């Protein structure tokens, strides 16, 4: 259970302003969606929050303590990230890779603990990887690799999950399935997540709060109802977007 507070964050990259004075707080058990067009700054924002990129002004606090004051190892026990770039492949098997997710928690230099094995095997099972566990990473399909990366994050068991394009390479069934599993993990542990994605409908199904990035550092931030509507989305993506109501959820599509 953790609380992540972003206070008047201003972030620019190569002279381009991505967001100005952005403030929001991710409380325990919240799911946030992060939307915006290509190059709007979704990935940069996620990297900032994880302490991997410097920002211009503002503060990021985890449990009332500045993120910069945490050591990398401490931070890795609190915040876990799914990166957009795949796992670089010097040879390794699926099992070995997912097991690396336990790195921030390992106690011994040499011995792998039974707990770590158990957590790893649960993560493999959760993302339907048990049968692939002895396969080499370079023999996997894109979607399988993405599931390995997600399973590794799940084995890391952070309190805050930062997901950069979690549905990348996943087929339509796994897109939903993977997020369902992650969601139930979050609920079990009172963890929270922030997910950057291009799939508005997927995000709207799993997230309650949204940050929508516009150009020139402007943004909208708040409950799903306030942020996700035709006019906001059309403005953010610079493209006509229409909504249709279904009995399950409102769907958005471009015209």
């Amino acid at each position, binding site marked *: 259970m953790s609380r992540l507070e972003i206070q008047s964050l201003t972030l620019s990259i190569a002279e381009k302003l991505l967001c100005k004075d952005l403030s929001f707080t991710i409380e325990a058990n919240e799911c946030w969606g992060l939307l915006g067009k290509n190059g709007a700054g979704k990935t940069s924002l996620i990297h900032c929050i*994880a302490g*991997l990129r410097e920002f211009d002004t503002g503060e990021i606090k985890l449990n009332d303590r500045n993120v910069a004051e945490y*050591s*990398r*190892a*401490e*931070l*890795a*026990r609190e915040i*876990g*990230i799914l*990166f957009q*770039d795949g*796992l*670089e492949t*010097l*040879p*390794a*098997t699926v*099992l*070995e*890779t997912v*097991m*690396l*997710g336990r*790195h*921030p928690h*390992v106690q011994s*230099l*040499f011995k*792998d603990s039974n707990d770590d094995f158990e957590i790893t095997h649960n993560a493999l099972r959760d993302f339907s990887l048990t049968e692939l566990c002895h396969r080499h990473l370079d023999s996997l399909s894109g979607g399988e690799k993405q599931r390995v990366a997600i399973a590794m994050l799940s084995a*890391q068991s952070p309190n805050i999950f930062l997901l950069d394009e979690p549905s990348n390479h996943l087929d339509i069934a796994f897109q939903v399935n993977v997020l369902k599993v992650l969601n139930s993990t979050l609920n079990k542990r009172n963890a929270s997540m922030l997910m950057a994605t291009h799939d508005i409908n997927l995000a709207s199904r799993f997230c309650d709060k949204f940050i929508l990035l516009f150009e020139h550092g402007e943004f909208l931030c708040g409950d799903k109802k306030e942020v996700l509507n035709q006019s906001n989305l059309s403005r953010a993506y610079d493209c006509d977007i229409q909504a249709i109501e279904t009995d399950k959820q409102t769907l958005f599509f471009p015209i």
Partner: protein
Amino acid sequence: MIGTRHYLLIGILLVFSCFSILFSLLSGSVELSITVVFSELFNPGSELENQVLREIRIPRTLSAFTTGGLLAISGVVMQVLLRNPLADPYILGISGGAAVGALSAILLGAGGILLTNAAFAGAIFSIILVFGIANKFGRWSVTRLLLTGVVVSAGWGAVINILLTTSSTNNVQSMLFWLMGDLSQSQVHVGHYALLSTGLVGGLILARSLNVLSRGELVAQGLGVNINRLRLILYFAASVFTATAVTVAGSVGFVGLVIPHTLRLLGARDHRVLLPCSILLGGSFLVIADSLARSLIAPQQLPVGVVTAVIGVPTFIFILRRTISK
């Protein structure tokens, strides 16, 4: 992850190392019997054979083992640091710098300790030069380091060619031997063993971080590794290992590139296993290659670098094909 098969692999390599050392002690232009070797161990004698063993064979065998071990762990570290399977200990120009130092010494008629010092100075100069250029604008990325290293290497290559083409025939012979790797002049002492041991212990302490870094720098940071510190340690450690190995034996090729890959193909992907195995296999591989180098066309000697390639290439291709067909 470490399993039974990894302990088995380490066991086999330990036995293999002992055999390679015995093989080396028995080969050369003077025939020695196993009895002499074992009796010398427990009860040093003063016959000619004992002297050959004590003063020539044993030091040379230990030099070969130490050099091979240093090159192999340096290769492992470079491959993880650069996350490039083509990386070897020489890719960042260290051997080039050492070669220019050594060749200049030969040109000036220096030998022995002066030559080794010149080679070491050249290597250190090259390490600092590459790091200085790659680091000039604050941040250094691996791509930048790799490019700088390759460019500096090419520069050294040009200087080496100038030295070779402008030297007298006599000098060129010894220069070529140095360039191909040659253990006949080599001397290792307690400092070298200490360095290899430090490499092993330090490597084992960092092994888990190396496993994580193999998956990429961002992933490693996300999993709590301070990669700025780790990269610095890895760069300078691998550089010093290489500089030392090159100073002892010249640019022996192939060991640093192929030993780590061979072991990975044999299943030693976890650095907790890969590092100790690399020292054992790298060491014994070079010991065997050197034994053949001095016995194949005895009393003439071949440069050991030629032998490492001649045995290494087919062996590696064999292992590669077998593991792919599985």
